C-alpha cells in the first residue's frame, strides 16, 4: 500500500460539514501542514453568517476549500477533486461542484433518517445510485472517533467533536502530509485542557492509522503533491487580514508614527481589529468604539494629534463613516480607511465576497470629496498595499481608502517574507515653531504634492483651528468667499489627481500592450482572470490581462494603455462598477462581465466569456489551473 503513491501536480480538496463540525479548523490545519511541505496553495473558507445555524440544515453548512500544488496556484480551483462531507446537508450543498470521477468521503454515521430529512433528501443518496459518477468512500467516522477517544472519558457530545480531527488525520495520510504541526497546535490550543488535547490527537492518529492500515483495502489511494519550485527565501502562510495588519504597522513605522486604530466589530473586517489589538509590542493603540462613526472620528482625532489614524470596516460601516471621511478630506488629515467588502446592499451577504463598494469608495461622499482608492488583489499583496496606503496618506495629507474583500481577508496563501530592512522609509516632518515674526499657516502647501502643513498640538507657535467649514487658501481661517471655495475645491482635486504621477505605471500582467482583447480586473478576481487568460492564450486567442491596484486616481498611463486594445472587458464581482469608472474617465467602450453570487469567479466562467468574445464555441472540457508558463 505504502508504495502505491500517485504523484499529482495539484489537487482541490473541499471539507464540508455542519457549522459546529469544525470544518474551518480542519481546513486551516490541513493548510498549515500543506504549506510547510512547500506546496503552493490558495484557500477559500466559505461559511454561513450564523454562528451555529440549526444542526443538520443546508443553510448551516460550513466549507473550506484548498487548492494546492507543486506549481503556481492562483485560484481556489473551480471544482474539487475531493469532497469530504460530514453530513447529508454538506453533501447536498456541495456535491454538484465535485468533478466527475472525483473522490467523495462521507461520514455514514451522520446519515441518519432525521439528518437526511433535514437536508431535504427523501431517499438516502448513498443507496439510490445518485453518486455513481464519483468514487465514494463510506466510513462511519462518528463511530470510529468515539472508539478512538473512549479512554479519555469525554461525554458523547464532546467526543464527537473530535470527528474533524479523525477526518483530518485520514486526509493528511491520503496526501502524504505531516501530522506533527497539528499535534503541536492542538497541545498549545488545549494546554489547559489536556484531556481535550489528547482526545483530539488520538482521533487524528486514529484517522491516519485507519487509512494507513488500509482497512478499506485499495479504495483509498495515496497522493503525493510536491513542493513548488519557487524563489529561495523564508515563507509562511498568511491570510489577507494578517498581512494587512502587519503592513499597517510597517507603514506606520516607515512614517515614524504611532498607529491609532478606531474600529467597530463587523464581518468580515473584525480580524483586522483583532490582529492589530494583538500588536501592542509595536506601540499600536486600538480603540473598539461604540459605533462606526465614533471609530473613524477617533482615528481622525488621533491624526490631528500627530498619530496615524486608521479605521477598518465593511460596506455598511463605511456608509456610516461617510460624513467623517468628508471631514478628513476637508481638514486634510492623513487617515487610512480599510473596507473589507462583502455582499450588499444593506446587510446583504455578510460572510460572502463581493466587489460592490467601488462606487462608494470613489464617489460616496457629499460634496466634491476626492480621495485616493487602492485595492489589494491577494492575501500576500495586502502587506505592500497597506504600506502604500500609509505612504500616500502622510505624503499627501489625505484619507486613503484601501479596498480588500471577504475572500482576501479570510483566504490563506504561502508568502515569501519580505526583507523589512530594505523598505524605503517615508518619515513625516511635522511643522516646527515658526521663526520670530512669522505666523504659522496650517494650509500652507508643499509645492510638489500640494500637501498642507501638519503641526502636532503641543508645538508652541503653531496653535491653529481647523474644521469642516471651508478654509481660506491663504490663511487657513474660515472663509465663505465664493472664489476661495472654487480655488480650494480645485486644489483638493488637483492634489489627489497628482498622485497618478507618484504611483508605478500600469503594467500588463499577461499578454501584449495592444491587441484584440484586454481583460481589466481589480482586487481578488486576479487569480481566476489570470488563469482564464492563460488558458485562452494557450488556445491562440489574442487576449491580455491588466490588473489595477490604483483605482483613484488611475496610473497616468492607463488610458493610453487601454486605448491600444480593440476591446476591453471588465470582469467584476459587482454589477459593473469599475467598468463605469473607466468609461467615465476615458470614454472607453468597456464591456462588463459580472457575477454577484457571493462566490468567487470560476476560471471556466471567464474563459467562456473570452471565447464568446472571439466567437469560439464553448468547449465541453472544464478549465483547470494551468502550470506556470
Amino acid at each position, binding site marked *: 500500500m505504502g508504495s502505491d503513491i500517485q504523484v499529482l501536480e495539484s489537487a482541490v480538496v473541499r471539507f464540508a460539514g455542519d457549522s459546529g463540525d469544525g470544518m474551518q479548523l480542519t481546513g486551516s490545519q490541513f493548510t*498549515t501542514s500543506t504549506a510547510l511541505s512547500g506546496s503552493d496553495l490558495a484557500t477559500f473558507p466559505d461559511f454561513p453568517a450564523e454562528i451555529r445555524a440549526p444542526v443538520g440544515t443546508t443553510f448551516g453548512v460550513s466549507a473550506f476549500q484548498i487548492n494546492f500544488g507543486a506549481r503556481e496556484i492562483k485560484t481556489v480551483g473551480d471544482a474539487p477533486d475531493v469532497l469530504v462531507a460530514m453530513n447529508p446537508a454538506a453533501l447536498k450543498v456541495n456535491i454538484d461542484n465535485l468533478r466527475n470521477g472525483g473522490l467523495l468521503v462521507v461520514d455514514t454515521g451522520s446519515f441518519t433518517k432525521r439528518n437526511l430529512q433535514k437536508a431535504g433528501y427523501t431517499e438516502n443518496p448513498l443507496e439510490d445510485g445518485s453518486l455513481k459518477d464519483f468514487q465514494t468512500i463510506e466510513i462511519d467516522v462518528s463511530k470510529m472517533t468515539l472508539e478512538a477517544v473512549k479512554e479519555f472519558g469525554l461525554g458523547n457530545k464532546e467526543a464527537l467533536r473530535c470527528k474533524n480531527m479523525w477526518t483530518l488525520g485520514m486526509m493528511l495520510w491520503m496526501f502524504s502530509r505531516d501530522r506533527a504541526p497539528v499535534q503541536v497546535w492542538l497541545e498549545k490550543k488545549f494546554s489547559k485542557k489536556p484531556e481535550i488535547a489528547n482526545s483530539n490527537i488520538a482521533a487524528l492518529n486514529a484517522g491516519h492509522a485507519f487509512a494507513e492500515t488500509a482497512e478499506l483495502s485499495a479504495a483509498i489511494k495515496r497522493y503525493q503533491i510536491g513542493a513548488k519550485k519557487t524563489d529561495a527565501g523564508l515563507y509562511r502562510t498568511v491570510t489577507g487580514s494578517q498581512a494587512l495588519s502587519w503592513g499597517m504597522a510597517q507603514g506606520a513605522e516607515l512614517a515614524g508614527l504611532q498607529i*491609532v486604530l478606531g474600529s467597530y466589530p463587523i464581518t468580515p473586517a473584525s480580524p483586522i481589529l483583532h490582529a492589530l489589538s494583538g500588536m501592542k509590542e509595536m506601540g*499600536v*493603540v486600538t480603540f473598539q468604539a461604540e459605533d462606526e462613526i465614533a471609530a473613524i472620528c477617533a482615528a481622525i482625532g488621533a491624526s490631528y494629534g500627530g498619530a496615524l489614524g486608521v479605521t477598518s470596516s465593511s460596506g455598511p460601516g463605511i456608509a456610516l463613516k461617510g460624513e467623517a471621511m468628508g471631514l478628513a478630506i476637508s481638514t486634510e488629515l492623513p487617515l487610512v480607511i480599510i473596507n473589507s467588502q462583502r455582499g450588499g446592499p444593506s446587510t446583504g451577504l455578510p460572510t460572502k465576497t463581493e466587489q460592490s463598494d467601488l462606487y462608494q469608495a470613489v464617489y460616496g461622499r457629499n460634496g466634491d470629496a476626492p480621495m485616493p482608492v487602492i485595492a489589494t488583489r491577494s492575501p500576500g499583496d495586502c502587506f505592500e498595499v497597506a504600506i502604500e496606503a500609509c505612504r500616500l496618506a502622510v505624503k499627501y495629507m489625505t484619507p486613503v481608502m484601501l479596498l480588500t474583500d471577504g475572500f482576501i481577508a479570510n483566504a490563506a496563501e504561502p508568502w515569501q517574507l519580505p526583507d523589512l530592512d530594505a523598505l524605503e522609509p517615508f518619515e513625516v516632518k511635522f511643522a516646527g515653531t515658526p521663526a520670530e515674526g512669522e505666523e504659522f499657516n496650517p494650509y500652507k502647501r508643499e509645492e510638489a504634492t500640494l500637501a498642507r502643513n501638519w503641526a502636532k498640538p503641543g508645538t508652541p507657535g503653531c496653535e491653529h483651528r481647523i474644521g469642516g467649514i471651508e478654509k481660506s487658501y491663504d490663511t487657513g481661517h474660515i472663509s465663505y468667499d465664493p472664489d476661495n471655495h472654487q480655488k480650494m475645491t480645485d486644489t483638493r482635486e488637483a492634489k489627489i489627481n497628482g498622485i497618478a504621477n507618484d504611483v508605478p505605471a500600469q503594467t500588463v500582467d499577461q499578454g501584449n500592450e495592444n491587441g484584440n482583447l484586454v481583460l481589466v480586473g481589480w482586487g481578488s478576481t486576479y487569480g481566476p482572470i489570470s488563469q482564464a487568460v492563460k488558458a485562452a492564450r494557450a488556445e491562440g486567442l489574442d487576449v491580455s490581462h491588466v490588473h489595477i491596484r490604483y483605482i483613484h486616481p488611475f496610473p497616468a498611463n492607463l488610458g493610453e494603455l487601454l486605448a491600444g486594445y480593440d476591446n476591453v472587458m471588465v470582469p467584476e464581482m459587482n454589477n459593473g462598477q469599475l467598468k463605469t469608472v473607466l468609461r467615465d474617465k476615458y470614454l472607453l467602450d468597456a464591456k462588463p462581465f459580472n457575477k454577484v453570487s457571493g462566490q468567487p469567479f470560476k476560471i471556466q466562467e471567464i474563459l467562456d466569456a473570452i471565447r464568446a468574445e472571439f466567437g469560439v464555441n464553448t468547449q465541453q472540457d472544464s478549465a483547470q489551473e494551468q502550470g506556470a508558463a
Partner: protein
Amino acid sequence: MDDMVKLTAKDFTSDQEVRWCPGCGDYAILKCMQRTLPELGATRENTVFVSGIGCSSRFPYYMDTYGFHTIHGRAPSVATGLKLSNPDLDVWLITGDGDGLSIGGNHLMHSLRRDVDINILLFNNKIYGLTKGQFSPTSDVGTKSPSTPQGSIDPALNPINFALGSGARFVARTVDTAQKHMPGVFTRAHGFKGASFVEILQNCIVYNDATWANVTDKAVAADAQLLLENGEPMVFGKERNKGIRFNLEKFALEVITIGENGMTEADVLVHDERNLQMARMLAELGGNAGEPMAMGVLYAEQAEQSYTEAVIEQVNAYKGKRTLKDMMYSGETWVVK
C-alpha cells in the same frame, strides 16, 4: 522660559471676529474661559478645544489655542482619539443640547462611561439655534418652534441625569452669567482626572430668550439656586433660611424652612460630592415648584486611573518587547533553497 511669563486672557483670545448674536450667553462663557485658563497655568500650545456643530461649537475659533471644529455630535469621539494619540494635551470639549444629547448622545454617553480624560462643557439653551429655532431634547414640553407650531410633545432630557446614568465621575452645573461661580467650576473640572461634565445654563436671546429666567434672574436666583459646597449644609434663599432635607418616608429631597415646623439647621443635608445617590437626587431637584436647581459640583469621585491613562499603560507594558519582524518571522515558517 514661557513658564516665567504670566499669560493673560488676551493671550488666549484669537484674532477671529466673534460671530454669535449680540447678547448671546456664549460671549460670557468665552470670556470666562479666556480669563480662567491663565489662572490654571494652562499654555496655549497644550490646550485644545474640540467641538461639534451648533452655535456653541464655534467656540474653538475664538480661542488662541489648538482647536478642532468637527462634525455634528462627534466631538467626543474625535477628542478620545486625540487624547489616545497625544495624552499630555489638555482637551476641552464644547457641545450643546442638540449636538451632545441628540445627534451625539451615543458618543457623549460612551466618553463619560469610559472616563476619557477631557473636560466637557455642554451649553444648554434648550433650543436649536444655528438651524433657526427648532425644539431640542432639553426643550420644555409645549415649546412652540418652527417644527412644533402647536407645541412640542416629547419630554425633556435632564443632562445631569444623563451624565450620571452614563457613569460620569464628575458632574457639575453653572450659569452663563455667573461670572463668579463659573471659574470655580471650570477649575474643578480641569483639575479632575477623567471625564468631567459641566452643564452650563445658557440663554439664546433670539430663539429661546429667558428660558432660564426663573432660575437665573437676579431677582429669583437666591431662591431658585442651591449653590453646593462640599462638606457644607445645603442652605439657600435670600434669607439663607431655606434648606434641603432628606425625607425618609418619601425617600426624596424636600425644601424646608429653618425655624418652621420644628425644623432646625440639624435637619439640613450636608453636601458630600462623593455620594452618588445624593447626586442623583440633587440632579432631579428643581423639577417641582419651590425647589432650587443644584449648582456647582454635584458629584466628583476620581478613579485611580482615567481611561486614557489605562490604555497607554497597557500599551507601554508590551511596547518594544517584540518587533514586527519577530512576529512575522516566528511560528510556522519554512525555507525554500
